[in-house]
């Protein structure tokens, strides 16, 4: 896996604070496991079927099954979850979920308390970029992970820019480490 960590969109530079690179998927798995209240946010690009996007829905569902992580589907992504037989995703506007994750007093979808780790994938790169920046600057006690194929520097942690196979393999590893299949 390449550890090159330049923002996928060339001009979307960040800093001084930049995401740590997930050099091994095990890192992400460990973080998810360690988190008390993780959550995953899946954007509409997951509903597309080109090579960059094909399996995100499936991976999200498998992660949910592996560790019970709640799934937020932004925009019309929910439809694809339902289509794939998964009925537990919650539909929310991306900004709305971002705004709530920012709020340390928000008790989450289930009312049981604030989340401490938010995973993102499938949003347009630049939109995820700014939402992650919002969370970086204004959330307290929340870590973020970008699981997209591209390095997104405003996350706490992000994959570097990956080849599709590397990316897929990373998910397989994470799901496996989470005890899923």
């Amino acid at each position, binding site marked *: 896996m390449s550890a090159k960590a330049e923002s996928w969109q060339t001009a979307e530079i960040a800093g001084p604070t930049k995401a740590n690179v997930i050099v091994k998927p095990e890192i992400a798995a460990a973080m998810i496991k360690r988190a008390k209240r993780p959550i995953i946010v899946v*954007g509409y690009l997951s509903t597309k079927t080109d090579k960059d996007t094909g399996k995100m829905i499936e991976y999200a569902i498998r992660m949910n099954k592996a560790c019970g992580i709640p799934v937020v589907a932004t925009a019309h992504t929910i*439809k694809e979850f339902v289509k794939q037989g998964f009925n537990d995703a919650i539909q929310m506007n991306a900004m709305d979920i971002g705004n709530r994750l920012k709020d340390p007093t928000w008790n989450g979808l289930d009312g049981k308390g604030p989340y401490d780790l938010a995973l993102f994938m499938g949003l347009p790169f630049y939109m995820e970029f700014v939402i992650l920046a919002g969370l970086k600057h204004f959330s307290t006690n929340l870590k973020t992970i970008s699981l997209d194929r591209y390095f997104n520097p405003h996350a706490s942690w992000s994959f570097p820019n990956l080849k599709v196979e590397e990316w897929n393999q990373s998910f397989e590893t994470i799901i496996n480490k989470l005890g899923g299949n």
Partner: protein
Amino acid sequence: MAKKGLVVKAKELKTDVAVVKDLQVSIGKLVDDTWEEPMGPTPMPSMTDLRDWDFELLRRYKPFYLPFCDVCCLCTFGKCDLSGDKRGACGLNMAAQQSRIVLLACCIGAATHTAHARHLVHHLIEKHGGDFPLDQGGLNIDVEAPVTRLVCGIKVETLRDMEEALDWAEEQVTHCLSACHTGQEGSNLDFESKAFHAGMADQVGMEIADLAQISVYGFPKADPEAPLVELGFGATDVKKPTILVIGHNVPSSVGIIDYLTKKKMLGQVEVTGICCTAHDLTRYEPSAKVVGPISWQLKYIRSGMADLIMVDEQCIRADTLEEAQKVKTPVIASSPKNCLGLKNRTNDSVDELVNDLVEGKVHGVLILDSDKAGEVAVEAVLKVAPKRNKFSIIPDIEEIKAAGAACSGCNECVRACPNNQPIPEAMKAAAEGDLAPFSEILDNCIGCARCDSACPKDFPLHSFMTKAGEQKLWEEKYLMRSGRGAIQDIEIRNVGGPIVLGEIPGVIAIVGCANYPEGQGAIAEITEEFAKRRYIVVLSGCAAMSVAMVKDENGQTLYEKYPGGFEAGGVLNVGSCVSNPHIAGAAIKIASIFAKRNLRGNYEEIADYIHNRVGAVGLAWGAMSQKAASIASGFWRLGVPVVVGPHGSKYRRMLLGRADKKEDWYVYDARTGDKVYTGPTPEHLFTTAETKEEVIVMMAKLCFRPNDTTKGRSMKLTHYIDLHKRYYGVMPEDIHLFIRNKMDIPITMKPEIQKILEEKGWEETKIPDPTLLKRMVRKRG
């Protein structure tokens, strides 16, 4: 009406009669009591006069800041790192800095429209005199300039009257911009309030600009039947000498038409336009052609079809001169805003100018006289066209194949593309002679050409796409209804009740730029979804063009299929960007005409009215400019929610409600003074929608208002639920928040919904006479 000053004629008394020495006339205000409307509390408000109202909105719709980067670089104290809880050298924190950037954008936007208006009014007074009467729509319009009346407390009847409003707007822009200085405002909420103020000034600037040009140039006057005009590459007759005008400020384009008319050559020269100048050009002369929105600039120029380009101001590619040179097209710059480094030749003779352009002695000239610019454009294009012979730099297929073969797949192009288009893959296909992927990319292309710049081998990738889509491009020929201008009073009278009571489910305003995430089609799709559900869909600017660019199976555009009136199912093009206040004006006029509220200097009450009662929602799907920011801001202060497309997330701040916080959604019942829970209506004041599907569902939801009658709410719910199921595949999770009592429940869904209500522990609530303003309570509770 009241005037602050007296009328001053242009000639000096000295030359007419005698020199008046030491004359001092002190008259105070002239009061014209034919206008009986009493003055409200805030005519020509200062930066703080409406701050309480702003804070009321901001209490409910809190800013969510989305920094573009971690630092501030606005002064030379910096750069300063604002990450974590750090403060800059001036003491500012990240929240305040982001809101400051929002304010700055709104100031730039407001300045742009106000300066545009000032230029127009100044120019038109110079040509037609200050007494020239304004005419928004003849007898069909009584409230001539609802925004100006509401904000400034004045009635504008002549061109000269407009100057007072512009003086005010310029002063406000200056004050607001001043607040962006280092060490000024320290509170993010105050920055937000000032951004609202700039947005309000922007609305005045735009209204003045459009009313001036409508009145003097005889644009369609509040005309639902404004002519259908031709739009698209294919609409231009490329055999003719062709002038392309680009920009927003129409006088120099009018100069072209006037000269052609005078010389009886209209029809011999093709006059085509891009961006708002194109709108206004066709409002002036419907035989002119619209090429398309802003994103069409580069591909049209490179195609070589324009034999002369005239630019005025705003939203013009900064490399127009360089690109035009490549295809040997001379350029005339005609605005002080955009001089392009060209020599100012305003005082040279037409012959000299034409000669220099035709002989290629200069690549362009600056002519700051719209009539002369028009004359030079026409005379030059007639001679340039045969010489140019439509010289194009769109490469042939062999060149593209060779480039495709030479491409190393470095990905710099896709990493530069705002829409992440798979250009390297298209290059691979092109190497094999397959241009289909490039043609697909063109569909999603916003014409920014960052790919060209990024390519280390300097391949003109945007030209490759243009070539690939060439055939389709040249088949583009559509009909767009020309900008109609304002909404008639009678239209308001007819629909005001149904809108306020919720029986017309909403007014969907789709405005602004063409920075789309995925093709133009979304705009038409969204429009039709709402039009066929009998919402009113109002359009302006590039969005109004995009709507035209989709035909149904019968070859008809939405402008042909749906009526142009402000009525259920209407699809209205109000005009160019400066026509946006007709949309705000419609909402304001509902309060005035339908509800008989006073407008004059009565901003807060009317905004409260609109926010609680008028189910209007704005969409700027391709928003990208600072003007779009200020336009949105003008709507926010009126309490009208605005949704932007994905790229709009880069404006760095959303205004989001929290549906889960019950305490945020109380209003006063004006009848009793009780605080009544109304549910999150409307839920957000500003947010980003990720997809067109989300836009549709979200906007249906954002049409809810506390004042909806049960019938109206039930209809709105029907649409919301229906659309939610259709696009999301599931029932909404939140319908219980929008049902006040069982009458609200759509009859056909009763069993299903009642079950949900039970699960959610729903309780019935009152339907108030809603207001956020304590002072509006008629009887204290």
